[in-house]
């Protein structure tokens, strides 16, 4: 065990996988000599050399397009897209190609690879270093989508992702890259994709959340507790495939669900969660499923803390479902 932050845990996980599987390569912009703009890949170049730790031309479409070809041929690319805001030049390659190879070839070809990309706001990054694009990818059949919220999970989920048979979009909540700290075993372990984790138990309200919003939700739950409200916080961890059983068992217990995410409200993942709860747990509900999310505006610069769900806004959501 060692105390690590998210960056250290991810670096450790990538290193272990590269040692284990010689077909693994890491590729992206500024990831080799610099170690990535957030330093997640620090030191990998020294250990694994330039054939396996590759500074690419500045071309997200090229990184993802060539990674697909590498994966088709049997190499295991770990791709870094420097900010998830920059992923769109590669969007066609992800949505029309990466996600569909297995299907359209009748199962003859597949391209298992991981695209790691920092996402979310709260770092004074403005419009182009803060967005949360997970819904675009969850909406695309053929992709798995993961977002950890602490170092232990980040390592275990990453090691599952990089060994999965299918492509995984691995969102890293950059706001808590360094703030999230915890004990992480130095040896190899995995956390299965598709399993949520109850971060705090409670029986009156369920908060469904992921990524950096887990931290805000836990703070809101603590404050609610001081008001005598017992809030359960479910960290989804994998968004697709979703741990529907964990969602339903918590909501059936509490009868109240508040969904918290940074991404804009309209067609955000909260809309899907809300619809699933309505379809599968309607008789258990004491109040309408409620969403506390980013607003339907472009991500702002000066007013980002007005935009982002805060413990105070989450408490309002809790209050609403408690007094409906």
């Amino acid at each position: 065990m060692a105390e690590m932050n998210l960056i250290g845990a991810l670096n450790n996980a990538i290193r272990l996988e590269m040692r284990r599987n010689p077909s693994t390569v890491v590729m992206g912009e500024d990831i080799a000599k610099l170690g990535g703009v957030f330093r997640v890949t620090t030191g990998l170049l020294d250990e694994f050399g330039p054939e396996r730790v590759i500074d690419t031309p500045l071309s997200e479409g090229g990184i993802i397009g060539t990674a697909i070809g590498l994966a088709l041929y049997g190499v295991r690319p770990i791709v870094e897209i420097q900010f998830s805001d920059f992923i769109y030049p590669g969007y066609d390659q992800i949505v029309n190609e990466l996600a569909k190879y297995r299907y359209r070839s009748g199962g003859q070809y597949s391209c298992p690879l991981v695209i790691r990309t920092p996402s979310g706001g709260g770092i004074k990054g403005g419009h182009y270093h803060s967005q949360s694009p997970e819904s675009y990818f969850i909406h695309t059949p053929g992709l798995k989508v993961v977002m950890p919220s602490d170092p232990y999970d980040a390592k275990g989920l990453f090691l599952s992702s990089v060994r999965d048979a299918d492509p995984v979009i691995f969102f890293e909540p950059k706001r808590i890259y360094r703030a999230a700290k915890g004990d992480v075993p130095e040896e190899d372990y995995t956390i299965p994709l598709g399993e949520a984790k109850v971060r705090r138990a409670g029986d009156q309200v369920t908060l469904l959340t992921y990524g950096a919003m887990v931290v805000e939700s836990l703070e809101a739950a603590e404050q609610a507790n001081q008001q005598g409200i017992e809030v359960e916080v479910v960290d989804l961890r994998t968004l697709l495939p979703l741990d529907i059983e964990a969602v339903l068992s918590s909501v059936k217990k509490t009868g109240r669900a508040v969904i918290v995410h940074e991404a804009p409200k309209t067609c955000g993942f909260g809309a899907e969660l809300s619809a699933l709860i309505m379809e599968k747990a309607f008789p258990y509900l004491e109040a309408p499923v409620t969403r506390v999310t980013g607003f339907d505006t472009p991500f702002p610069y000066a007013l980002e803390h007005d935009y982002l769900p805060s413990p105070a806004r989450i408490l309002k959501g809790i209050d609403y479902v408690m007094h409906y």
Partner: protein
Amino acid sequence: MTIEAPPSDLDLSGEAYALASEEILFLYEMMTLVRRLDERMLGLQRQGRIGFYGACTGQEAAVIGSAFALKKKDWVFPGLREGAAMLLRGFPLSLYLCQIFGNEGDLLKGRQMPCHYSDRSVNQVSWGSCVGTQIPQAAGAAWGMKFGKELSHESRESPIVMCYFGEGATSEADFHVGANFAGVFNLPVVFFCQNNQWSISVSRDRQTASPTIAQKALAYGFPGVQMDGNDIFEVYRVTRAAVERARRGNPTLLEALTYRMGAHTSSDDPRLYRDPQEAEEWAKRDPISMCRKRLESQGIWSQKEQDSLETRISDQISRALRKAEGRPSPPGKTLFQDVFAEMPWHLREQMALLEGTDNACV
């Protein structure tokens, strides 16, 4: 033929890659098969027996001549008109037709429109219709081959990638991206541009102000060669030189000057946008007629052989059609297979809904 890049290790002399008589006859027969197959399929489309078709009429030399320069272990990233490369490389015609019908015999499980063929047995990779996406992927697979060689420290000759696309694709970002990666990382790939003068209704002049497509290679640091795409002997010779260069670990861009003699696809009508006289001019340079003239001048072909070939091909297509047509659609549950390696709960639920085995789902 114009070399658009500084002298390289491309051997275009023509001496090294001479074809034997039986090889020439084989290529001629393949081109004729492709022509007749396209005619039959367009006929089936007009009769409503298949939904869609994209012929390679006029481009047979470019497809067959270039694919013949490959070895079995090499990979092909095709565009719309290179399905016949699979036939050349041994894929059975009846299975090919099952793909066109999208029926239960289709190895792709009816998931793609006609002419989006692929099969692992011939290393032909699945194609997506969004133009140009295969180009960076081809560079990536070539990178994988290079990486594999480095990893295994093998001295045996490694495979290479052949990547096909039209001149319209060179306007897409993916062309530049793929070529750039191939140049920067020096990848074993041949980029084969079928410049057939038309991208549906838009002429080649509207795609680029470059005098040639081939010269674009210069900007990415590797040679580009423009060739007569209707002369199968030139296509083979130049492609073979580029393939050998790829085997030595280097990329090349080839531009085959050719002509789409028919419509873009069965859904298109070229009378709306191009002068019929243009097609008549190009018909004088029909790649199959050009090859036949050469065979006749060598005294190895006459009307007698032609008649016999036509009968053989017609029977071959009819036999394959009888095997392929009329088979049922793929079973309903295959709709949900291969989205992921293992089916997640939400797809299992939706499959049960389609099959009517779970009335509880909405």
